[in-house]
Every structure is written in C-alpha cells, then in structure tokens.
C-alpha cells in the first residue's frame, strides 16, 4: 500500500502542478482577486454600479448576509464567488474564510482555523485585517496573527502556514493589515513589525518559502504591490523606504530610501510608481539602483486610503476627508471635493464615478467629468455598520463588508 500511496501522491502532485500552471492564466476579467483589484489601482471596468442605495429600505441591495466575526479585510470576487475573511472569539483567535454565491449570497462553504500567532490588536481593528488574494484558482487568506491559509475555490485546504509560528517574534499588537499579493506563481506577504520583520515570497502551490528578505524593524501596514506590466517585480513599502524586489528570488533591484507612509500602499501604473512620500511622489524606475523622481506634491498627502490611478488622473483622500484629483504627469491638482467622515478603505472608480465608503458606513458617489475638470457628489447611501474595508467591484456590483455584514449593491 505504501508503494501505491507514493505513486498516487506523485500523480496527484503532477496533476496539481498542471492545474497550477493553468491557474496562473486563469483570472477572469470580471474577477476582483485582491486588495484594490487585479491591478492594485482600485479601478474596475465594465458595467456601472448604481449611484444610490439604501440598506434600511433595501434599495439596490441585492443581498446582505451576516458574518460570524469582525474584519477590516475586504471581500474579493473570484469565479462567481465572493470570499471574505473574519475573525472571532474573545481573543480574536478564531479565523474564518467564508465563500458566498455571487448571485444570491447563500453561503457555499466556510473554513475555520485557529490562530498560531499573536492576536492582540487595537479595538477598532481585528485579526482579519488583511484582504485575501487569489490567482483565480486558489485563495490565500492572511491574518494579523500572520496565519496564512491556502484553499481552492471549493474550500479544500491546500496548505496552511503560521508565519509567526515559524518566526515567533513576528507580531504587532496594534494589529497588522498588510494584504498579500500574487505575482505569477509567488504569493508575497509583508510582515513588518518591531520583532521579526520580513517580506517573503511563497510558492502558491505548496506554501513553501521561495525567498525571505529582512525588512526594517518598524511597524508597517502597507501592502506589497506587483509592478505593472508583468515585470516580475514586487514593491515593498516601509516607513523609511520603498524597495523593489525580483519575484523569483527576492533580490532587491532598486531602493527609494526616503520616508514613506506606514499605511497607504503604493500604486504602480505603466512605468510609474506613486508612493505616499513627501506628500505624494511619482517615481520612474530604470536600470539604476535608485528610481528617478518625476515629481512630488506635498499637498497630496494620502490618509489611510491608497492612491487611485485611472489613466491621466490620480486621486487621494487626505486625513481631513478631502478627495483630491491631480494629473499623473506632474501631480498638479485639478479639483477637490470635501467628503464626509473618516476613510480607512480605498474607494473604487468605475467608469466616470468613484465609490467611497466612510467609517460610519456612508457610501459616497462622486461623479467625475469626462474631461476630468471637476468632480461632484452625486449620490450614495447608508449601510448599517462601521466600515473600514475597501469595496470590491465585479460586473456592475459593489461588494462591501462591515464587522457584521457583507452586502452586494447592484441595480434592481
């Protein structure tokens, strides 16, 4: 039996390799597979979501489901399924991965895990702070406790890692929220804290480490970002620098050694990287060890939300809740709109509208003129709950979660 078991295992593993190879190219256009979408720029194409909704009246609320735990993490959409993480328990040590049918919101499956790392966080946060990521076939659920579970779309476990179990001094008792990103067949996770601080590339298929690079021993909540254009480069942002690493081995290819924001993540579009540093700075990486600085705009300082880049325009929400639009070419401001409240999640742009959710659960829709010359409030709606997550958008629907619920907002 042992012999046959070994053969079975080899066949299964080879099959899995083939499946994985297919998976790399299996992302669907309508998927929203990770924090800030497929291109980490918070822009969705296609059908426009509604401009108004009401939780109390059910207006344009396609469905609403209860969640078993808290989480600033955002939902992702993969293959007709909505995946969301949550954490529960008096010590936030119960980790949930939930999968819902995109059509009617019925729960398809749930998997739970026990945290192996530190679970303490600020009361406003939770263990389920990082947004999960997917390569189209596999889901990677990451938590503040540095636990990392890989499941397929049917909830079958592929592997489970405890990064703080492996490196016990890794942990941030304020809570960590860096969301992992998939670049090719490597999952990149950033664990930056005062203890064991590192970035790591993990084989998506096996969960085995491909590489690990030491990072500054300082808390960071920013998420890694794959550089645009299939460059095979991942960006890691820390409070003191932004560095670029080869996805194959983690080797650093360039370094911008100037103070960056600890929360707002970088955005890579075309050959430009936008980073919250000295306000907002645009970098153009080349073949040098340092990228060229194209411009910086001190008056464009993002708050917790990351920079959104759509074509020739970029958008930031500052700590005062003011939405600023500027041109990507030179960072020159074009218009500003005062939003209402405090923003932790990053808004999404679909067509000529931006969808933003403040912490109090109020959604705000900003209509953007076709020529980009102005933006104005043009709708929105109230949801019942505190929202720190970012919306996911797929096929004209918005998916957003609070600590208690997940909503699908779509035209009736």
């Amino acid at each position, binding site marked *: 039996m042992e012999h046959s078991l070994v053969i079975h295992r080899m066949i299964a593993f080879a099959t899995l390799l083939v499946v994985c190879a297919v998976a790399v190219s299996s992302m669907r256009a309508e998927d929203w597979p990770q924090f800030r979408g497929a291109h980490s720029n918070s822009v969705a194409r296609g059908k426009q979501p509604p401009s108004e909704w009401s939780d109390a009246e059910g207006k344009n609320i396609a469905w609403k489901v209860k969640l078993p735990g808290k989480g600033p993490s955002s939902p992702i959409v993969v293959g007709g399924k909505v995946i969301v993480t949550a954490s529960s328990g008096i010590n936030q040590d119960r980790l949930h991965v939930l999968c819902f049918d995109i059509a009617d919101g019925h729960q398809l499956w749930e998997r739970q895990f026990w945290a192996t790392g530190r679970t303490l966080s600020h009361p406003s946060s939770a263990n389920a702070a990082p947004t999960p990521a997917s390569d189209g076939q596999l889901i990677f659920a990451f938590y503040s406790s540095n636990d990392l579970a890989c499941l397929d779309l049917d909830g079958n476990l592929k592997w489970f890692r405890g990064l703080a179990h492996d490196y016990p*001094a890794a942990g941030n008792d304020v809570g960590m929220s860096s969301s992992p990103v998939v670049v090719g067949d490597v999952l990149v996770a950033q664990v930056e804290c005062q203890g064991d601080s590192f970035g790591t590339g993990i084989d998506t298929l096996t969960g085995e480490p491909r590489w690990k690079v030491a990072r500054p021993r300082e808390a960071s909540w920013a998420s890694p970002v794959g550089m645009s254009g299939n460059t095979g480069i991942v960006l890691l942002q820390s409070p003191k620098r932004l560095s670029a690493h080869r996805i194959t081995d983690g080797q650093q290819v360039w370094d911008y050694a100037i103070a960056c924001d600890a929360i707002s993540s970088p955005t890579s579009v075309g050959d430009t990287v936008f980073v919250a540093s000295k306000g907002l700075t645009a970098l153009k990486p080349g073949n040098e060890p340092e990228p060229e600085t194209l411009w910086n705009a001190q008056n464009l300082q993002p708050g917790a939300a990351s920079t959104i880049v759509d074509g020739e325009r970029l958008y930031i929400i500052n700590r005062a809740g003011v939405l600023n639009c500027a041109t990507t070419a030179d960072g020159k401001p074009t218009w500003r709109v005062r939003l209402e409240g405090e923003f932790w999640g990053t808004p999404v742009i679909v067509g000529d509208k931006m969808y933003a959710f403040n912490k109090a659960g109020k959604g705000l829709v900003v209509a953007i003129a076709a020529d980009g010359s102005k933006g104005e409030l043009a709708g929105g709606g109230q949801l019942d709950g505190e929202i720190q997550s970012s919306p996911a958008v797929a096929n004209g629907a918005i998916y957003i979660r609070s600590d208690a619920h997940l909503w699908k907002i779509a035209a009736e």
Partner: protein
Amino acid sequence: MRTLTAIYLATLVAAAISGPVSAQAAELDTYVQSLRKVQPEGVGHREASYAWGQLVEQADAESLPTILAGMDGAGPLAENWLRAAVDAVAEKQVQKTGKLPIDRLEKFLAHTNHNPKARRLAYEWIARVDKDAPERLIPGMLDDPSLELRREAVARLVTAAESSAKANDNDQSKATYREALVAARDLDQVKAITEALSALNAPVDLQHHYGFVVDWQLIGPFDNRGGKGFNAIYPPEEQIDLATSYEGSAGSVSWQQHHTDHEYGEVNLNKALGKHMGVAGYAMAVFESDREQPVELRIGSENANKVWLNGEKLSEAEAYHANSAIDQYVGRGTLKKGKNVILVKICQDEQTVDWAQNWVFQLRVCDSTGKAVLAKDRGPANPKPKKAEATASADAN
C-alpha cells in the same frame, strides 16, 4: 503531549480492531499521520496536501472522532490541517443528510484528556445538528479544560445570577456569581462578575483572584539609549544582591521595596523609579511555592520586556508602545518547591510623543488555564469595597 499522543494511538487501535472498517481506518490513519507531520517553513506540505484531499474524500462522518483524535499531541500547524479536514467531512455529511454520529462525537467530547480544541470542535458540530445539545452538555463544563466550553458554562451561571438578583434573591445571586467567578478565565467575564458582586456588596480582591505579584524589589534606571539596553546584561541579570548599589544611567542605584495597590497589579516605574527615557529597570520578587509545579508567568507591558524564573529566561518581547493587555506575553516554566526568584526587565525607549511615556508592567503567576497560582506565604484575599460603597458603609455606621 505524550499522554495526548497515547490517547490518539489508543483511539486508532480501537478503530482498527473494530471489524470490517479496519483497513479503511488504517488508510485514514496514514493520511492523518501525514497531516501531523507538517512542520514550519512548509516542510511536509506536499505529502500533507495530498493526504488532506484523500482524507476528506474517503472519510465519512463515522471517522470524525478518529480525525479529531489526530489532534491529540499535534502541533498548532497540524491542528489546523486536521481541523479543516474535520470541517470538510462534517459539512459534506450535514449537507447530504443533516445528521452526524452524535453519540460517537459526544463520547469523544466527554473524554476530557483529548485536545481541548478538538473537543470544542466536536461540540460545535454536535450543537449544529442537535439544538438541545447546549442545554444538555454545557452545564457540566464549568471546569472544562477547553476555555471556550468553560466560557459558555460560566455565561449560563451569570444569567442565572442575574435572574436571582432581579428576583431580589441577593444571597442566591451572590452565591451563583461566586461559583461563576471561580470558573471564569476570560477577562471580560471576570470583570462583569466582579462588578456585579461589588454592586451586591461582595467585592472581589482581583489581585488575589488573578495571582498578580504585588510585592517587588525594584532597581534602575540603567542605560537603554538607542535600545541597546535590551540586550545589555546589567548586574541584576548576573546576581541579585539586595544590599549592593550599582552605577545606573543617572547615578548610583540600589534595590528598593515596592508594593502596588493597583487592582490589576500594575507597577508604574515612572512613579517608583522616576520619570526617565531611554532606560531599563528591573523588578524582582521571591515566590514561595509549596511544591514543584508547572506555571505560566504572564506579563502585560507596552515596554520591551524580559522575564526570568530562577535564572531561566521564559519570555522576551522587544516592542515599544504597541499596545498592552493583561496576559500579553506568556512564559512557561516550573516552580521548584520553596523559594523561587522572578526577575523582570522593563525597557523604556526615547520617544517624545504623549502616547509613549508609560513605563509600566503587570505580572501574574497562573496555571495553563489562567487560574491563579498563589505563593505559599501570600495572605488571604483582601477585598476592598469601592470608595462609594465604603463611604455608604461608614455613613451607615
């Protein structure tokens, strides 16, 4: 760990000799063993990933106790692989038939030597298909090794105590709250119970209840500029001589006695040793134990800290002002019979912002469930009524 592993093996043997399913049981065990072998850094994942798929495909609901028993003696990583398998098998069965082998799962649950997490998981699946299960099972779990099961039993008592209070039966309410307090381990429940008891004129000595160490010898400050003091070895780490003075970062320093009245045992070094930045201080306590026993030394501090028991380092955390909580860091060691020395190092950094000025810690000694372990020479509990109540009482007299 060895005991739990032995229980798992015994469960497996019982399954294997039970008749026609023995071959399948042996095969399932092969898969369970693969899951138990996962190690840090992804070691064993390839085999485990295959085994997980086979296990979930081949196992039926009758196999759930065997998979649950696989958690006995397993590490935290393996526990999660096995947990996911239990959930997948149970979910498949419930979706298909709406039923689970309740009797077998309850038998597993009743065996309190099984992994507490596995038992809690068994309970959750029982409760999912049998709505009467909580009423039937939870009342008997007040002293359960699973803190989650215990929590539900405590919650029931709290509800009963509230009902008694509403019915003006304060004696019964107090008695029920006190029973709940003995069993309670979670801070929120302890707080709620002690507040209720206090309102019923039955205050609780929280220092005593939790086992906070309240009498210390303190010395400092020593230099920690640039964080270099965290790993520097100052004299108290080499030898404790309460009669000797040393050169500190602000002149000569000597040990000084300190008692904290803080209800959660907090020691404020800014007050005791003076307000300093970029410094390290030490706290030492002698703990007399009536026997050799395993204990946990649980410290809470927003400052970088290290804890030693009889010269053995049990825990360390080099983090500054990133939150704090009771039981934040847990160190495991063994008290010897007689006098034991607990040494704590607390480092303060040089940040100037308002929220980084505290130089403080709290430490308690307890067993693995969080129940206080008290020193042999510690006096009885000394509950103090809240000021308002004390005044009311004085007025009444």
